């Protein structure tokens, strides 16, 4: 067949199409994917040698003959084997390609066979030099160009008559180099893409696993946090009591507590740690424990809160603080003594419909170790309703960012004041969720309701 540029191009193009299809198919096989993962068992090496030996043979067969020496991509197979499997695979595939080339004869027989063997070896050494990693596309293509250059050099060195060798090389050098470089490019591109895909998939799996583990941890954290809240509310003759805390996320910073105190008195606590989520939950665990211990130790609410504050403030870096309302109810006398440490003022609705808010008597806890807390007392009458809440209730927003607000809360409390504590609590909750409509709950929401009389 005469050297015709158009014909050469068409044949080369056909070769590349076969290479593309082959590269695609081989990258789908399990053994090839294992090799990409670095699993170079003997079995995989043998498969590499056989598969890319056949690619090399195909390279010879598909070539076009010019002056008795085919223009071919015989070296591509051994190079790929070497790049991804190391010298053993490269030489093995090269041996198959070389052996087939020997059967074809011709005056460049020896030079071409040696070159095919060498291409597998050099690619394998490059693989080793890359610390047993597949080299990048640029390295692979550059190596292919150099290896084909060496191939041409070998033809000039060993093939005689020399004038024929020169004529051959000047004719086929450029298309040979280009064809093998493109072959390596195609294999490299598809292989490296696959490798990247696999890495991305692995990353995603790892991320998902991590996420699942975190979710499981948060779930446990939530259960632990719920166990900090009173499991059941005490039944108080002459009173009804209801409480519920709903964190916005898995865990939250709100808490409430109901404590039995000496002399049959009952301590009620509601508190809100700054921010929300895990940091708030950790600080909530600290604060609720400290407050519980301090309330058990001190007779007077002011002292209990003051002591709790100095303990919490010592632990508070990064500006974490907790607003807290603590009151001691004497059920027999019908009095409450309270301390409000920067908490949203609870609403006391009297039987006659008037209401007062139990405003601050000291700063939020965790800010200033030396803060002292004033306590105040009130008498309760039958029919009075006390609503303790956190800002998640009053700052709940509708879709236009308008807040639920204290006025709305107070008016619900006033209207429902003849109902039991549980009914009032349920009404407030349903009014808030109606107000916010489909908006997701933004902040932790806690309510404690005490009703005098049933």
């Amino acid at each position, binding site marked *: 067949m005469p050297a015709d540029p158009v014909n050469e191009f068409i044949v080369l193009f056909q070769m590349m199409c076969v290479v593309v299809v082959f590269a695609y198919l081989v990258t789908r096989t399990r053994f090839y994917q294992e090799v990409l993962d670095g699993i170079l068992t003997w079995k995989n090496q043998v498969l590499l040698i056989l598969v890319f030996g056949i690619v090399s043979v195909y390279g010879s067969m598909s070539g076009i003959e010019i002056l008795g020496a085919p223009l071919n991509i015989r070296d591509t197979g051994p190079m790929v084997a070497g790049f991804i499997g190391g010298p053993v695979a490269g030489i093995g595939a090269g041996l198959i390609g070389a052996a087939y080339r020997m059967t074809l004869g011709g005056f460049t027989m020896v030079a071409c066979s040696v070159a095919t063997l060498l291409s597998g070896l050099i690619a394998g050494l490059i693989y080793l030099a890359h610390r047993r990693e597949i080299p990048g596309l640029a390295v692979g293509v550059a190596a292919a160009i150099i290896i084909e250059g060496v191939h041409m050099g070998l033809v000039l060195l060993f093939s005689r008559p020399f004038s024929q060798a020169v004529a051959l090389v000047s004719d086929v050098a450029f298309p040979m180099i280009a064809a093998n470089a493109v072959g390596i490019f195609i294999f490299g591109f598809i292989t490296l893409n696959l490798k990247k895909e696999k890495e991305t998939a692995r990353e995603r799996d790892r991320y998902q696993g991590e996420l699942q583990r975190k979710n499981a941890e948060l779930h446990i954290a939530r259960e632990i946090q719920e166990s900090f809240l009173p499991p059941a509310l005490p039944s108080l003759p002459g009173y009804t009591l209801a409480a519920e805390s709903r964190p916005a996320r898995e865990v939250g910073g709100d808490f409430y507590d109901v404590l039995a105190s000496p002399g049959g008195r009952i301590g009620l606590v509601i508190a*809100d*740690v*700054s*921010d*929300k*989520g895990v940091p708030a939950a950790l600080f909530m665990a600290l604060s609720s424990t400290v407050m519980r211990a301090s309330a058990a130790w001190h007779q007077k609410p002011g002292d209990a809160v003051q002591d709790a504050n100095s303990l919490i403030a010592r632990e508070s870096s*990064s*500006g*974490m*603080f907790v*607003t807290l309302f603590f009151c001691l109810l004497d059920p027999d006398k019908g009095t409450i003594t309270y301390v409000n*440490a*920067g*908490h*949203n*003022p609870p609403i006391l609705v009297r039987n006659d419909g008037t209401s007062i808010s139990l*405003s*601050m008597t*000291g*700063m*939020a806890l965790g*800010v*200033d170790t030396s803060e002292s807390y004033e306590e105040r007392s009130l008498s309760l009458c039958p029919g009075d309703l006390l609503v303790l809440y956190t*800002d998640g209730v009053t*700052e709940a927003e509708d879709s*236009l*960012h308008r807040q639920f607000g204290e006025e709305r809360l107070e008016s619900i409390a006033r209207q429902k004041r003849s109902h039991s504590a549980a009914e009032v609590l349920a009404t407030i909750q349903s009014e808030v969720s109606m107000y916010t409509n489909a908006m997701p709950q933004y*902040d932790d929401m806690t309510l404690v309701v005490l009703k005098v009389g049933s």
Partner: protein
Amino acid sequence: MSTILQVEEQRQGNIPVLLLRGRMDSTTSPEAEGQLNRLIGEGAQHIVIDFSDLEYISSAGLRVLLAAQKRMKQTGGTVLLAALRPEIRKVFDIAGFNRLFSISPSIEEALGTGQGR
């Protein structure tokens, strides 16, 4: 109404003035925290925060201001808050933080406080 917080830094003389615009909550306040920490790290003696365009502050926002105030106190500095809207002011009052920060009705007065010290 926005759901974001814009933090703008200006200088009045050598006093940095941070203008907060929008909502300061747990999602948005980390950026303001970063800015405050940077200014404190650069050795600012006083930082004025202009609240005139702040629509909402949650406890997460208060925490950021409190942390800044605590850090500034160690070096004898102060965080000066200015031009709080009534609803924002109320949040400070409820928690008792009005005693903790120097709160001025306007930027000019806050700057006067900063320079007078």
